C-alpha cells in the first residue's frame, strides 16, 4: 500500500568539453612538418593561402596528395586548388567523416557549413532581405533577437567515452540551448523567452518548456566560440531539457535548413529509419561570427549544422564486421550538392596504416592529415565534386571490411562519471568523479553544475578530494536556487593532478513536492576542461571554436542522474478518517453515555409456562400466579 512511486528525477550531468573542433569538418593542413616521427611521408606543401590562422577558408583545397603506398612508389604533388572565390558572398561546404571505432561500431559525422559575409546586427546598413544559401528562418531570428551566438543540439543516447573515445562535438542527452546576446540588448530575459518559443516552432521541439526554472547564467564557462572582445556573462543564457525526445520531426526541419535540402549531396543519406536505429544520435546547429579573412577586420557569419551518429555493431551489423554506406544509411551517394563549393567524405585510417585492420574500398590516393584533440590522424579523402569518385555506376558506396581484431584503445585523457549515493528518499549525495589519465600533466578543469531547485544542496558539505587529499578549487561561484524560480548553479575551477581521480561530493535533500507520478526529473551538470599541450611542432587548428595556440579545449558531459523524488502516501486520508472516527466513537461516545445514561428497574417477563398458566387461570377467573 505504500504508494512508493518515485517520481523519478533524472539528474543529467553534462561534462562539457569543448574540443578543438572535430576534424569532421575541417582537415588541418600542417605546414612544414618537420618531425621525423612520421613515416617519411612528404609534408603538406601549402600554398600561400594556407597560413594556419586562416580559419574560414577551407584549407583542404591544398591537400597533400600521395600515391597509394601499395604501389611502392612515393610521389607527392600538390593538388592545386581552384582559386579562392573572390569576395564570395556566401558559400556552402559539406563533409562526412567516418571513423571506425575499436568496439566494431562506426561513427559517422556530417557537417554542413554555410559562410555568409554580412552583418545582421548592424543598424546603419540596410536590413538583410536577400537570402541565398543561408536559411531565412534563422537569419530573421538572429536579427530580431540580436543574437551574437546560438548553439542548439538535440541528442538521443549517451556518448560512451570509455568505448568510443572523444566525440568531435560533444552534446548532452536531450536538448541543449545556449545563446550569447548582443550587448545592445536591454531585456535579455524577454528575448530569451521569445527566442525559445520561436526555436520550438522551427525545430518542432518542446523548447517552450525552457523558462526561468531551468535557465542558468554561467559566469565562467561557455565562453563565446566566435569572434568577440567583451564577454559580459550577463548576456549569456544556458538551458537544457534532458528529457527531450529526438525523432524524425526534429530531423525534418533540420534538413530543410540545408541549401540542397535532402535531395542532393550528402544529405540524401539522412534517412530517419536508419539514423534513429543507432546507439547515439545527435544533431546540432551552431551559429557564430568568424573572421572573414586573414586580417580579421570584418566578420562573417558561420552556420554549422552537424549530425553525429554511432551505428551499433550488433544491432545493425548482424555480427559481421562489415560496413558500407548502403548498410548504414540505406542509400548511396550519386552526386554532390551543386551549391556546395566542396563536398568530401573522409575515412579515418590512422589505426590502419598498412591495411591490416580493415580494408577500404573503393581505394583512393587522396590523403589528408589533421590534428584532432591533440591527436594526429590520417584520413582518406573522397572528393564528390569530381566525377571519377562515382565510377562507372554513377554511385559511390564506401565499403569497410574488418580483417583483424583491434586491440584496446587508449584510455581517454579526461573522463567523468556521476552518481547519486545514499539511501532513502529524503537525503542523498551527488558524487562527481573526474579521471585524469595523463601520466604527468595536470590540467585545470572548470566544472559547471546546474541542479534543479527541488534538490536542496547543502553547500557546506561540498568537498573536493584528489588522491585522498583535499583539493581546494581556485574559483568557486555558487548561486543558490530559489524555489520554483531558478536552479542551483555551481562553478568551480579545479586543478587536476596527473594520473588521478578527483571526487566532488555534495549532500542534498529532496524537496517534498507533489509531482506528476509519471514524470521524472533530470539534473544536468557540466564540466569544462582545457588541456594545454605543447608539442614540438606548431599545431594549427583551423577547426572551429577556439584557439590558435597549441592547446585544445575539451568539453565532457556526464550522464544524466536519475533521482527519485518522494511521493506522497495516497492512503493517508483513509487512515486519518478511520483513526479519527474510531477515536471519536470510542472516546466521546463512552463519555456521552456516562453522562446521560439513566437506569430503571425493569420487571423481567415471566417464562412461557407461567404465562400459559396465567392465561388459563384468567379464563377460569382464578387469581393469577406471582
Amino acid at each position: 500500500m505504500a504508494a512508493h512511486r518515485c517520481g523519478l528525477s533524472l539528474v543529467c550531468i553534462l561534462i562539457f568539453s569543448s574540443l578543438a573542433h572535430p576534424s569532421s569538418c575541417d582537415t588541418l593542413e600542417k605546414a612544414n612538418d618537420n618531425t621525423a616521427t612520421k613515416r617519411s611521408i612528404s609534408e603538406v606543401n601549402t600554398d600561400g593561402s594556407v597560413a594556419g590562422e586562416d580559419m574560414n577558408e577551407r584549407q583542404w583545397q591544398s591537400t597533400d596528395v600521395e600515391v597509394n603506398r601499395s604501389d611502392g612508389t612515393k610521389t607527392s604533388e600538390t593538388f592545386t586548388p581552384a582559386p579562392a572565390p573572390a569576395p564570395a558572398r556566401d558559400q556552402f561546404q559539406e563533409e562526412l567523416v567516418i571513423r571506425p571505432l575499436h568496439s566494431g561500431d562506426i561513427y559517422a559525422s556530417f557537417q554542413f557549413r554555410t559562410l555568409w559575409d554580412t552583418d545582421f546586427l548592424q543598424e546603419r546598413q540596410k536590413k538583410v532581405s536577400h537570402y541565398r544559401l543561408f536559411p531565412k528562418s534563422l537569419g530573421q531570428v538572429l536579427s530580431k533577437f540580436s543574437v551574437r551566438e546560438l548553439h542548439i543540439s538535440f541528442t538521443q543516447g549517451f556518448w560512451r567515452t570509455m568505448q568510443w573515445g572523444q566525440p568531435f562535438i560533444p552534446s548532452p542527452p536531450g536538448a541543449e540551448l545556449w545563446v550569447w546576446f548582443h550587448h545592445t540588448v536591454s531585456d535579455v530575459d524577454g528575448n530569451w523567452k521569445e527566442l525559445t518559443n520561436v526555436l520550438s516552432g522551427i525545430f518542432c521541439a518542446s523548447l517552450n518548456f525552457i523558462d526561468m526554472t531551468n535557465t542558468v547564467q554561467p559566469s565562467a564557462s561557455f565562453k563565446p566560440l566566435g569572434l568577440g572582445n567583451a564577454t559580459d556573462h550577463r548576456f549569456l543564457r544556458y538551458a537544457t531539457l534532458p528529457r527531450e525526445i529526438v525523432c524524425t520531426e526534429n530531423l525534418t526541419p533540420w534538413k530543410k535548413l540545408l541549401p540542397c535540402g535532402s535531395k542532393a549531396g550528402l544529405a540524401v543519406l539522412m534517412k530517419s529509419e536508419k539514423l534513429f536505429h543507432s546507439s547515439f544520435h545527435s544533431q546540432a546547429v551552431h551559429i557564430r561570427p568568424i573572421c572573414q579573412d586573414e586580417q580579421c577586420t570584418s566578420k562573417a557569419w558561420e552556420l554549422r549544422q552537424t549530425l553525429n551518429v554511432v551505428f551499433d555493431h550488433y544491432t545493425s551489423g548482424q555480427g559481421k564486421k562489415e560496413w558500407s554506406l548502403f548498410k548504414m544509411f540505406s542509400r548511396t551517394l550519386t552526386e554532390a550538392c551543386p551549391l556546395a563549393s566542396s563536398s568530401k567524405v573522409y575515412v579515418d585510417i590512422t589505426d590502419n596504416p598498412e591495411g591490416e585492420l580493415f580494408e577500404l574500398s573503393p581505394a583512393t590516393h587522396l590523403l589528408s592529415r589533421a590534428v584532432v584533440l591533440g591527436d594526429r590522424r590520417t584520413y582518406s579523402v573522397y572528393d564528390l565534386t569530381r566525377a571519377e569518385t562515382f565510377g562507372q555506376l554513377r554511385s559511390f558506396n564506401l565499403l569497410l571490411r574488418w580483417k583483424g581484431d583491434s586491440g584496446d584503445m587508449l584510455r581517454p585523457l579526461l573522463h567523468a562519471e556521476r552518481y547519486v549515493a545514499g539511501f532513502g528518499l529524503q537525503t542523498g549525495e551527488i558524487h562527481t568523479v573526474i579521471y585524469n589519465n595523463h601520466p604527468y600533466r595536470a590540467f585545470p578543469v572548470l566544472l559547471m553544475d546546474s541542479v534543479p531547485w527541488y534538490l536542496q544542496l547543502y553547500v557546506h558539505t561540498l568537498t573536493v578530494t584528489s588522491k585522498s587529499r583535499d583539493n581546494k578549487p581556485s574559483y568557486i561561484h555558487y548561486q543558490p536556487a530559489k524555489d520554483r524560480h531558478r536552479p542551483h548553479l555551481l562553478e568551480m575551477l579545479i586543478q587536476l593532478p596527473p594520473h588521478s581521480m578527483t571526487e566532488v561530493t555534495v549532500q542534498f535533500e529532496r524537496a517534498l513536492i507533489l509531482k506528476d507520478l509519471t514524470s521524472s526529473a533530470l539534473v544536468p551538470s557540466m564540466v569544462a576542461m582545457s588541456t594545454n599541450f605543447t608539442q614540438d611542432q606548431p599545431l594549427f587548428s583551423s577547426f572551429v571554436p577556439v584557439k590558435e595556440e597549441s592547446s585544445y579545449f575539451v568539453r565532457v558531459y556526464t550522464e544524466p542522474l536519475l533521482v527519485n523524488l518522494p511521493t506522497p502516501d495516497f492512503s493517508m486520508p483513509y487512515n486519518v478518517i478511520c483513526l479519527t472516527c474510531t477515536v471519536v466513537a470510542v472516546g466521546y461516545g463512552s463519555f456521552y453515555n456516562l453522562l446521560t445514561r439513566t437506569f430503571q428497574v425493569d420487571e423481567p417477563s415471566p417464562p412461557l409456562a407461567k404465562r400459559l398458566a396465567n392465561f388459563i387461570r384468567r379464563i377460569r377467573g382464578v387469581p393469577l400466579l406471582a
Partner: protein
Amino acid sequence: MSNDFLQMHLKAVMSCLVIFLYKVHTTKAGQFFSSGHTNNWAVLVCTSRFWFNYRHVANTLSVYRSVKRLGIPDSHIVLMLADDMACNYRNPRPATVFSHKNMELNVYGDDVEVDYRGYEVTVENFLRVLTGRLPPSTPRSKRLLSDDRSNILIYLTGHGGNGFLKFQDSEEISNMELADAFEQMWQKRRYNELLFIIDTCQGASMYERFYSPNLMALASSQVGEDSLSHQPDLAIGVHLMDKYTFYLLEFLEEVHPASQANMNDLFKVCPQSQCVSTPGHRTDLFQRDPGSVLITDFFGSVRKVEITKDTINLTSPVEPPIQRSGSGDIQIESLTYVDQLPVAEIIHQKPKQKDWHPPDGFILGLWTLILLVFFQTYGIKHLKHIF
C-alpha cells in the same frame, strides 16, 4: 386572332425556355460557388500517452498522411501527439509507426512535423489553438490561422466516455466545452465549414451538444458502445489501429485530389459488420446537403491559381546591392577569438555587483516587529527626541 394566339404561344414558349435556361445556369453557377471556402486547415489530435496506446498515434498519423497526400501543406496542419511512439525505446523499428500488421504502411514517414508533442498536448492548449487565444510569442506553426473562408477538419482520438474525452491520463474535455469553443470560433468568424471526426468510445456523445452552424460531425460509436481496436502486431506487441480509422484510411487511400466522392460515401465507411460499433454522424447544423459536399472540401486543399497571359523574363539574375560600407569607415582593429578557459582571468574575477532588492519575507517581518515594539515602547511623540 390567330396572330395573337400565336404570339402568346410563342411568348409562353420563349419565357419557358428562358426560365429553363436560367435555372440551368444558376444550378451550374450555384454548384461552382457552392463550397465557398478558399483555404483548408486541419487540426489532428491524439490525446493518449503510454506505449499501449500506440494505436491512437497511428490513427492520427494516418489521417495526417491522407490529408497531406491530398494537398494540405504542413503549414496548415496543426498536429498534436501526446506521446512519442516512433522513437520510443520499446519500438523495435525506430522512427516508424505502422498501421497494418504486416508493416506495410509506415504512416510516420520521413517528412512529418509535429507541432505539439508530449506534455504540450493539454486541454488548455487545444482550446487555445481552436479559439486563437495564444500568447504572443507562439510561433506560426503552432497557430490555427484560419479565417471566415476556411474549411477546417478536426480529428480527435483517444479514450473517451459519455460526454468527455481524456487528455494525457490526467484531465478531460467535456462535450459542452467543445461546443462552446466551436461557438467562439463561429462568432470570431474563424471557419466557414467545419468537419469534426472523433474516434473514441461513445464518441457520439461528444457532438450531441454542438449548436453552432456549419458543423458536420462523425463519430466511430454511439453512446453506450465501445470503439474497438483492429488488430495487434506480434512483433511490436500492441494493437496498431482502431477499426474505424483503419477503414477510414482504406477509404481515403482511394480518394485523389480530383475525386468526386462526397460525404454520403464517408458516412458509409465502416458499417457495423466491420466495425462492431455503430458509427454515427450529425448533419442538421450543416447548411449544404451532404451529398453535394466533396471529401476534398475538407481533406484536400484549394489551390489558388492565377492565370496570366503576360510573359515574365526569368533570365536576368537579381544582383544584390553591395552592402559593404565605403572606404571611409574600415575597422582597423582586428577582431580576436575569446579564450575558452582563461584560467588567470577566472581566478581573479571580481564578484558581480548584484542589484539591490528591498528585503522581503522573513527579514521584512523581523524588521516590522522590531519597529512595532519600538514604537509601542516609546510612542510616536518621543520620536522628536530622536529626530
